[in-house]
């Protein structure tokens, strides 16, 4: 147990002394994963809404792709994005490899299927009759869609939590497309891997604890939103 105690002590000293510039790493993580989550929501919610509500040829295939996408290995995504952005790849001219943009692209690809699948499942659970009711009261299609999302908001909050959780804690793809460049593309997960390899457990553990704290805080906020929504519904 001594190794953990020593690492914890060292980690605490580093965090409290301010000598370890942890904030740059944390901010990079939050910026990249926050942007990726937002973009994934902007892409995933409308697509999930359409697939969840409309009946069309190929809907089953779309759902299968989303559900399979939820279990897609990040290293696979990292590999595909790295190849696409490499000098010989189709987007090599953009010179995006080893940039925060490349990391956001990879994380969007990881989070989007999760958001789509959860959104589709949530909105398809909203009764058709409820949408028909809104339509019968004169609501336009966009207003019916908004109402459906509002009715399915518990599921949507879960989609946000799952999407953000999947990218903030992901390491394989960001390592491959970001390169873990200090001050540029180093995020918490890649830094933890690097410090662990170097045997600097205090640094690694301090970052891991901050990462855990962020994940817990985000989930506290989202869970509070869910429970307050539930409380209002059950009043």
């Amino acid at each position, binding site marked *: 147990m001594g190794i953990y105690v020593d690492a914890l002590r060292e980690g605490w000293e580093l965090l409290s002394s301010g000598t370890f510039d942890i904030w740059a790493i944390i901010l990079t993580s939050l910026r990249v994963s926050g942007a990726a989550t937002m973009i994934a929501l902007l892409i995933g919610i409308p697509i999930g809404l359409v697939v969840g509500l409309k009946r069309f040829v190929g809907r089953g295939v779309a759902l299968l792709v989303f559900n399979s996408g939820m279990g897609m290995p990040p290293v696979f995504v990292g590999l595909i994005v790295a190849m696409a952005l490499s000098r010989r790849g189709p987007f090599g001219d953009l010179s995006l490899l080893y940039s925060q943009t490349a990391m956001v692209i990879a994380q969007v690809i990881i989070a989007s299927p999760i958001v789509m699948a959860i959104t589709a499942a949530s909105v398809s659970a909203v009764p058709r009759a409820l949408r028909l009711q809104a339509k*019968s009261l*004169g609501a336009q299609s966009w207003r019916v869609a908004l109402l459906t999302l509002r009715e399915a908001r518990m599921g949507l909050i879960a989609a946000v939590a799952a999407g953000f959780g999947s990218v903030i804690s992901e390491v394989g793809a960001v390592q491959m497309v970001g390169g873990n460049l200090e001050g540029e593309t180093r995020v918490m997960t890649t830094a933890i891997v690097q410090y662990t390899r170097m045997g600097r457990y205090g640094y690694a553990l301090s970052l891991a604890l901050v990462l855990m704290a962020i994940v817990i805080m985000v989930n506290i906020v989202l869970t509070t939103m869910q429970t307050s929504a539930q409380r209002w519904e059950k009043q």
Partner: protein
Amino acid sequence: MSGAPVSLAGEGLRRRLGKAGFELVVDRIEAPAGETLAILGPSGSGKTTLLELLGLLARPDAGRVLLGGSPVDTRNRAARLQMAAVFQRPYLFKGSVAGNVEYGLVARGISRREREPRVAAALERVGLAGYGSRSALELSGGEAQRVSLARALILEPKVLLLDEPLASLDRLLKRQLTRDFATILGEAGVTVIYVTHDQDEALVVAQQIAVMNEGRLVSSGPAEDIMGLAPDAWSANFLGIESASTGLVSGVDAGLVELISGVTTIYAVGNPAVGADVLFSVHPEDVLLFEPGTELPLTTARNRLPVRVLSVEPRGSSLYATLDANGVGLAASVSRAAAAELRVVPGAELLAVFKATAVRWRLGA
């Protein structure tokens, strides 16, 4: 209401659900302006599908919907804004009661200042004054259905679509709300399509009734006529009355009609042409039974037919007896006490008495 009520009609409506499944075929149906048309039928008969087509909530495979005589379709928002619907389950949206009631007004871009007094008035109209700030999901079934009605009435629709609005409520509440609905709809002066499988409910709220079975319209017309005359065995069974009998008009004298059915003569009122074929029926409530040879009380009842009791079955608090009057099928509703006194049992020979005005008839055999 916003302007005079308008009629709603469907012509040549066709709608297939599933590749080899149910098909709705309705050649013509109309709810006259300002009246309530009840669409009556068993579960799965296509009532709701027809309501969705007439309410522009679904597109027919063929046919058209006429609102005030003009063809309209699902893309015609102006037409849709003249309608509002209340479904079997209230389907209240998450949020407050007021938020639900004002939903359609928000969709119409009505300002908050204008919405607030209208919401209060609508809630008062359905007996829920002061409920505006409550959560919509904390209401009882009856309250929720009233909110659903307020949500539709606040829009002052010209056509109101009600899909079994009371079916999910308990009997006591249903009886009370049926009366309330009839009153509210009467005051509203709106054209109403009222889908139900409950004949009593239909009779209380509707002036017109259309009976459906297996996607087809079996009969339609004024409520009293439809509920008193079953054109076929299925309708008779569904409506709980005897099938109509066929007859021939053998004479008309000052509005008194003489009908011949087999060897039996029946008297009715009206003015059909002599020689016309008719379908006729007598409501069980209008048939009185006596022992043969009894001195009848002073009555204007012209029809006095010897009958044989075919069957007797309990129906609510009374007994329902099917009768044969020399080949003419009749039925009588008798109290249990009267049935015991008269010995109304299968095989019993009795005298059936009913007025000429109690005979419902229509042309066609």
